[in-house]
C-alpha cells in the first residue's frame, strides 16, 4: 500500500489543485473550481457560526424563563442566526459552491463566461460577511432577519446599519453569480448539448439565476431605504415620519419569498442528479421536471402577500395571494412524484449521496405539505408568527436545502477533492442528521399549533416539554453535522484516490479526471446523447 499512496504523489497528473501553490494562486485565481473552493470554505465557516448561535438558542430555551442569556442577547442570537444562515450560507451554498464548480464542467466549457466577475463575486461576499461579523462583534443586532420596520428603522439602537450594509453588499455577489450562470448556460454549451440534453442541475441553476438577477436588486433597494430611514430619518416606513409601516414588508417579501426558491431549487437539481445516478435511470418526465423549476421561479414572485395575511391587508388581496400560493405547491408536488417514479424498475444502490437525496424527499415533502396550512387563510390566521412557521421553513430550508447541499457535496466530493471518503461514516451521518432534524423540528409544529409565538426569549411553562424535546433533538442534529466535517477533511489527505467516475454516473463532469485539470477538458467534448443515458449500452455487450 505504501507504494500505492506514494505513486500518485510522484506521478500526480496536473490538476486544478496542484497546478500552482501559494496563497496568491488562490486569492487571485480565475479558475471557477478554485473559486468554488474559496466559497466552500467561507460558507462552511458561516454555517458553523450560524449553527453555534442556534445551539445557544436551543440551550437557552430548555427553561421557560430562559436558561442562558438575557432577552436582549437572545434576540441578537436569533437575528444573527437568521441573517448568517440565509444570506451567508443557504443562498450561496449550492449555487456558489457546487454551481461554480459544476456549471462549466456540465456544459463542457473551460470556465464560466466571466471569470473575473466570478472572483469579484467572492470578494464582494467576503466584504458583506465582514460587515455582518463586525455587527456581531460590535454588539449585535436585534431586529430579526426580517428587519421589520419601524422597529428596525427607528426603534432599534443596535448595529442595524452594519448588518444592512452586509446584506446589501452580499446581494451583489448573488447577482454576479446569477448573471455568470445565465450567460454561460446560454452561450457556452459545448457542441451537441441542446437545452433538453442538459442535466436537470443546470435547469435548476438557470431558474435560480433568474431569481437572483431579478429579485436581489429589490432587496438591495429595500435595505438601502431602511438604512436611509435609520440613519437620516427620511420618512419612508415609519408612520411617525410620514411613512407607510407595511411598505417594507411588501418590498422585503417580494425578494425574500423568491429567495426561498433560490435555496430550494438548486437542491432539487442536485437531488435529480443523485437519484438518476443511484437508480441508473433517466429522470422520469425529464422535461416536466425541468419546466417545473421554471414555473416555481416565475410563480415564486407572485406569492409574497402570504406572509402578510394578518397585517390587515384587504381580504381580497389575501384571497389572491392564497390562491397563488397553492398554485406554487403543484410544481413541487409534481417533482416529488417524478423522483419517486424514477426509482420504478431502477437498479438502486444506497451510497451516502442517495441517502441524503431520500432524506431530502422525505423532509421536503413534509415541509411542502405543511406549507398548505400557511397558504390557507383561515388556518394561517392562527399559525402565522408561531413555531409552526419556524418548523415549516426549517423543513424546507434545512431539511430540504441543507440535505440537498450535503448530498451534492458527497456526490461530487471525489470529483472536487480527488479523494473518497468512508462511505459507512457518511451513511451513518446521513441517518443521524435525518433523525436529529425530525426530533428538533417536529415538536415545533405542535408548539406552534398550541400557540407559542416565535422569537420568545422566555415562555409560559406549559410549553417546556416540547421545547426540551426540540433542544434534545438539536444535540443529535449538531453531532450529525460535525461528522461529515471530520471525515471530509480527513479524506483530503488520507482518503483513497478517486477514479474519474467512481459512481458510474453520466454527465460531462465525470468524463474528465478527478480532480479535473485547470482547463477542465483536454478537448472540448461533443454531446451525442440525452442526459442520464444510464440504459443498456447498444453494442457494448454488457
Amino acid at each position: 500500500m505504501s507504494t500505492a499512496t506514494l505513486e500518485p504523489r510522484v506521478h500526480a497528473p496536473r490538476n486544478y489543485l496542484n497546478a500552482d501553490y501559494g496563497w496568491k494562486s488562490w486569492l487571485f485565481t480565475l479558475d471557477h473550481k478554485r473559486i468554488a473552493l474559496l466559497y466552500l470554505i467561507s460558507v462552511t465557516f458561516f454555517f458553523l457560526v450560524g449553527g453555534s448561535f442556534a445551539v445557544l438558542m436551543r440551550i437557552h430555551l430548555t427553561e421557560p424563563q430562559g436558561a442562558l442569556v438575557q432577552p436582549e442577547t437572545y434576540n441578537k442570537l436569533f437575528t444573527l442566526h437568521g441573517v448568517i444562515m440565509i444570506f451567508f450560507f443557504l443562498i450561496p451554498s449550492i449555487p456558489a459552491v457546487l454551481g461554480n464548480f459544476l456549471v462549466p464542467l456540465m456544459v463542457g466549457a473551460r470556465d464560466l463566461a466571466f471569470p473575473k466577475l466570478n472572483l469579484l463575486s467572492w470578494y464582494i461576499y467576503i466584504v458583506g460577511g465582514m460587515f455582518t461579523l463586525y455587527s456581531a462583534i460590535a454588539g449585535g443586532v436585534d431586529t430579526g432577519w426580517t428587519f421589520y420596520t419601524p422597529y428596525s428603522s427607528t426603534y432599534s439602537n443596535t448595529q442595524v446599519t452594519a448588518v444592512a450594509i452586509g446584506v446589501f453588499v452580499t446581494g451583489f455577489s448573488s447577482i454576479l453569480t446569477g448573471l455568470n450562470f445565465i450567460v454561460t448556460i446560454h452561450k457556452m454549451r459545448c457542441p451537441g448539448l441542446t437545452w433538453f440534453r442538459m442535466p436537470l442541475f443546470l435547469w435548476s441553476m438557470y431558474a435560480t439565476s433568474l431569481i437572483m438577477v431579478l429579485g436581489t436588486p429589490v432587496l438591495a433597494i429595500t435595505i438601502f431605504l431602511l438604512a436611509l430611514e435609520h440613519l437620516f430619518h427620511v420618512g419612508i416606513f415609519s408612520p411617525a415620519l410620514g411613512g407607510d409601516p407595511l411598505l417594507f414588508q411588501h418590498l422585503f417579501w417580494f425578494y425574500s419569498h423568491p429567495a426561498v426558491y433560490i435555496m430550494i431549487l438548486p437542491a432539487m437539481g442536485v437531488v435529480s442528479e443523485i437519484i438518476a445516478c443511484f437508480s441508473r435511470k433517466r429522470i422520469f418526465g425529464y422535461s416536466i421536471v425541468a419546466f417545473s423549476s421554471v414555473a416555481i421561479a416565475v410563480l415564486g414572485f407572485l406569492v409574497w402577500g402570504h406572509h402578510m395575511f394578518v397585517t390587515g391587508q384587504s381580504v381580497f388581496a389575501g384571497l389572491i395571494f392564497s390562491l397563488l400560493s397553492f398554485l406554487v405547491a403543484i410544481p413541487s408536488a409534481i417533482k416529488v412524484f417524478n423522483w419517486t417514479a424514477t426509482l420504478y424498475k431502477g437498479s438502486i444502490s444506497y451510497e451516502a449521496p442517495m441517502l441524503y437525496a431520500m432524506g431530502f424527499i422525505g423532509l421536503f415533502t413534509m415541509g411542502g405539505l405543511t406549507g398548505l396550512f400557511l397558504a390557507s387563510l383561515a388556518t394561517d390566521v392562527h399559525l402565522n408568527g408561531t413555531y409552526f412557521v419556524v418548523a415549516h421553513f426549517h423543513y424546507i430550508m434545512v431539511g430540504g436545502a441543507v440535505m440537498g447541499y450535503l448530498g451534492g457535496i458527497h456526490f461530487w466530493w471525489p470529483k472536487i477533492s480527488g479523494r473518497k471518503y468512508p462511505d459507512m461514516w457518511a451513511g451513518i451521518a446521513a441517518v443521524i442528521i435525518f433523525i436529529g432534524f425530525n426530533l428538533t423540528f417536529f415538536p415545533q409544529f405542535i408548539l406552534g399549533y398550541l400557540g407559542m409565538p416565535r422569537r420568545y426569549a422566555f415562555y409560559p411553562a406549559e410549553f417546556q416539554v416540547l421545547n426540551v424535546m426540540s433542544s434534545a433533538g438539536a444535540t443529535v442534529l449538531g453531532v450529525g453535522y460535525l461528522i461529515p466535517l471530520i471525515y471530509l477533511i480527513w479524506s483530503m489527505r488520507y482518503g483513497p484516490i478517486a477514479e474519474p467516475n467512481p459512481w458510474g454516473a453520466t454527465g460531462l463532469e465525470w468524463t474528465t479526471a478527478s480532480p479535473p485539470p485547470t482547463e477542465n477538458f483536454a478537448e472540448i467534448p461533443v454531446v451525442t446523447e440525452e442526459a442520464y443515458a444510464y440504459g443498456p449500452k447498444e453494442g457494448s455487450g454488457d
Partner: protein
Amino acid sequence: MQSMPFQPEQASSIAKSVDELYLFLTLVTVFFSALIFSVIFYFMIRYRRRSPDERPKPIEGNFPLEVLWTTIPTLIVAVIFVWSSMLYFKNAEAPKGSMEIFVTGKQWMWKVEHPEGQREINEVHVPLGRPVKLTMTSEDVIHDFFVPAFRVKKDVLPGRYTSLWFTATKVGTFHLFCAQYCGAFHAGMIGSIIVQEPDEFERWLAGGTPGESMEQAGEKVFQSSGCSTCHTPDGAGLGPSLLGVYGQPVKLTTGETVTADDAYIRESILLPKAKIVMGYTPIMPTFQGQLTEEQLNDVIAYIRALGKSQPKPKEEGKQ
C-alpha cells in the same frame, strides 16, 4: 392545563371550524407523506441493485400519469382553498352590534379601554357569548394581538387602526400573546383574556373606580384642545360641524367622497391638510405628537357619539 395537549383550548365561536380545517389538512399531509414514503421504501427494496453491472431499461415518462398527478393535487388544493377562504370571509367582519373595546399596543404592554371608561393593562375582560370587536393601534412599532384559544390574530400597527373580533364561548382566563417581534421584551408582552358570565362582567364593568367614559374623556379633550372653537355644532364655525358626521359620506374639495370612519377622523386630526371638506379652507393645525393614542381613541369615541345623537340632514350649511 393538562400535561401535554396537542390542541389549544377551543374557547371562541370560530375555534371549532378552524380546527376542522386543520384536521383535514393534517389528514392530507399524513396521507401523502405515508403514500410517498411507502412507495419509496417499496421501490428501494424491490429494485435494489442485485449486480454491479445491471443496466435497467430507461423509461421516458408517462404523460397520462403526469396529468393524473397534476390533477389530483390541484383538486385537493382547490378544496382547501375554497374551504379556508369561505371560513376566512365569514369571520372577516365583526357582526353588527358587537361590543367594542379599544386596544393600544406599546413596547411592551397592552393598554385596553372600554367605552364605559374602564381601563386595564395586559388584561381584557370580556363577557361570555357576546361578539366583541377590538379596534387596535400601536404607539410605536408593529405588534400583534394573538389569542390562541380563540384562533384569532391581527397585527397592531402604528398610525393605523386594525380590528379583530371574537365571541368567547368558555368562561376562563386565556393567553394573550404579542405575535410580532417588537424588541427586547417582546416575550413579556403577554396578557390575559378574562371571559366572565355576562352578569359578572357587568358588575366588573360597573365596579372599581367609576371613571369617566371614553366619550366623556373625549369631550374634555375636544374642549381643552380647542377643537370646539371651530367645529361648532351649528356648522357656523371655521370648521365643519361634527354632528351626525360619523359613518357618513363626506365630500372633499377634490370632488372625492370618503366615509368618515375611524381612520379618516384620525387622519384629519393628525394630518388635517390631507383631505379638506368641500367648502372649507385648510387652516386646521396638526395635533400630531400632542395627543396620545388613548386621547385619540377618546376623541373618536366622542365624535362617534355625536354621530349617533343627531342624525343631521346631509345638506351642510356652506359658509
